[in-house]
């Protein structure tokens, strides 16, 4: 146990004394989030309301009028078509409750979300319940906060997986055929299980600390509150951190590529997943969700990003438990597979 704690202390000390690691773990994420917040909050401020035509006789014409982001024109059917043709509006809410949109894009997606919610509302109305159109419909479509929230939560999702780098580093310290230091440590009476477990504990702690720091930064500096549900958010961050390190362990242990290859591999993979999750702006995310919905369902960056958003902005726990369990189970599986790869202690070549 004493050795376990000395391994933990070693890992924490190394993380805190490595200026490169500190920069990429703490400074770079803050810089990136700041850049994104500046860029996208500006865009959001300048975002125009979506022009729509609502045909006379639409049962929810009054409700549509109350939605802030819509610029509604109540017109007749033929006039509405002319407006759409002349590109004066992005869509038409027709009297028969169908929706006609001009093409593909952010505005059209928002209109589709509203249209689908109106249909649901219609069913409820038919059942005789009362309706409140003042706030919910756009929020439910995850679009209320627009690009800022999407990009920030995707970035958070990416940073929450930064434990990957700690994972590959642990393996390169203990697997004799991967580095001279590992060869040296392998000649000592070190317990690998103890070393790997200590690396996991310290890695999860550092990774979670980093993500929580970013959450506080967003809350205090940019007034973006992703800590409205702190305990569930913390649990998600811990599970994601554990998963990130487990991926690092697996990539580290399953092959003999040098660190110089494994680090860029991780960076590229995370950037790709983050882009798919909307870090570069929502259009790519929308495209993927339309054409490859399974990809973003199990894209870990998107799972984190979506869950953080739902927990803290929509106050919804949808998919929270499922995602935490997926991260935990996948992490355990990857750790076991990594230990199997690492069971070899004598090598044909070093």
């Amino acid at each position, binding site marked *: 146990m004493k050795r376990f704690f000395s391994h933990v202390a070693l890992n924490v000390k190394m993380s805190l004394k490595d200026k490169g690691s500190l920069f990429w773990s703490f400074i770079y994420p803050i810089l990136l989030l700041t850049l994104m917040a500046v860029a996208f909050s500006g865009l959001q401020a300048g975002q125009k309301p979506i022009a729509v035509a609502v045909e006379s006789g639409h049962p929810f014409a009054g409700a549509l009028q109350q939605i802030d982001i819509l610029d509604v024109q109540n017109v007749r059917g033929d006039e509405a078509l002319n407006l759409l043709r002349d590109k004066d509006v992005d869509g038409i809410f027709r009297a028969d409750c169908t929706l006609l949109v001009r093409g593909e894009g952010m505005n059209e997606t928002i209109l589709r979300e509203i249209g689908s919610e109106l249909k649901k509302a219609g069913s409820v109305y038919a059942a005789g319940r009362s309706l409140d159109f003042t706030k919910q419909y756009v929020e439910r479509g995850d679009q209320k906060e627009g690009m800022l929230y999407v990009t920030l939560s995707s970035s958070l999702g990416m940073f929450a997986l930064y434990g990957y780098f700690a994972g590959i580093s642990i393996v390169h310290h203990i697997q004799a055929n991967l580095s001279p230091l590992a*060869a*040296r440590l392998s000649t000592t009476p070190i317990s690998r299980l103890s070393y790997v477990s200590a690396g996991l504990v310290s890695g999860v702690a550092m990774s979670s600390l980093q993500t929580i720091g970013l959450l506080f930064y967003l809350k205090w500096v940019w007034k973006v509150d992703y800590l409205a549900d702190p305990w569930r958010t913390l649990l998600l961050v811990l599970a994601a951190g554990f998963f990130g390190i487990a991926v690092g362990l697996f990539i580290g242990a399953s092959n003999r590529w040098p660190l110089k290859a494994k680090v860029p591999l991780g960076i590229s993979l995370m950037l790709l997943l983050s882009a798919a999750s909307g870090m570069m702006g929502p259009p790519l995310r929308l495209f993927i969700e339309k054409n490859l919905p399974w990809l973003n369902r199990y894209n870990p960056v998107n799972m984190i990003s979506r869950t953080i958003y739902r927990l803290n902005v929509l106050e919804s726990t949808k998919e929270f438990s499922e995602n935490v369990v997926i991260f935990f189970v996948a992490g355990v599986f990857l750790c076991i597979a990594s230990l199997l790869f690492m069971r070899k202690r004598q090598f044909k070549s070093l």
Partner: protein
Amino acid sequence: MRVCSMREVVKRYKKVVALNRFNFEINEGEIVGLLGPNGSGKSTAINCLLGLLSFDEGEVEVFGRRVSPDDMDTKQRIGFVPQDLSFFAELSVTDNIRYFAGLYEQNNAKRDEMVREAIAFVGLEKYAKFAAKKLSGGLKRRLNIACGIAHRPEFIMFDEPTVAVDAQSRNFILEGIKEMNRNGSTILYTTHYLEEAQELCDRIVIMDEGRNMASGTLEELIDLVDPTEAVHLFLTDPSDAALRMIAEIPGVVDVSEENGKTVIMLTPPGQHLSTLLEELKRHEIYYTSLYSELPTLNDVFLKLTGKALRD
């Protein structure tokens, strides 16, 4: 007592035979040098002894037990100083040594005592709080050694610890190794520097192409070749008569003259130089300068392998 042995060990890397029926052993209290050019199999032999490398044939034992990577008792008794600098660059000198010592000793007081001793032993007291990455090359080498010896091992393996080290640090390292040996540690030292093997080792094993070409004390190895001492003279009058006279002096086996320098070969080495000088004086053969070369390990190596050690 035998500390370690390798018997008929064969290690192949695909088609390359790194160890070719390699044999050697080390007894308690010895400093044994594994001498050979780069690629001769020295590091492979050490890695087999450490249990890091598997081998195809033969037997390897340390402290009378077959080498196994899971044998923690044996690992507790050995120390290893690798050729590559292997420590945590971000940590301080003290933290590095403390961590490595802590892998062997769990008692904090004893461990801290070991750390103090190791720092003093390698002369890094002034740098104890420095981050390892900020040390100079020579000081990093010393730290590399300290991490491997802090736990006071009975048997220490040094794999070319002085590569790319300045003369001052090299002397410091060699003196330290002698001191460790005086304190009871058995030492295995690999090098491709002849001078180090000559200066340090009780016994030398000459390796080439994975084979044990010869082993013994320095004197025993030199006896394996035709031992001659070469005396280089710059004569004031290198006439044929003078050269004929020199050839008659007892112990002289050959005399030659080239570009004003006369080379006189004496055998056995180290015994006839004073006689030669007296005879030159008696025959009034004068010279402006002189130097003598005793046979070296390189001569032995050249004789055994047909190539110079640094080739």
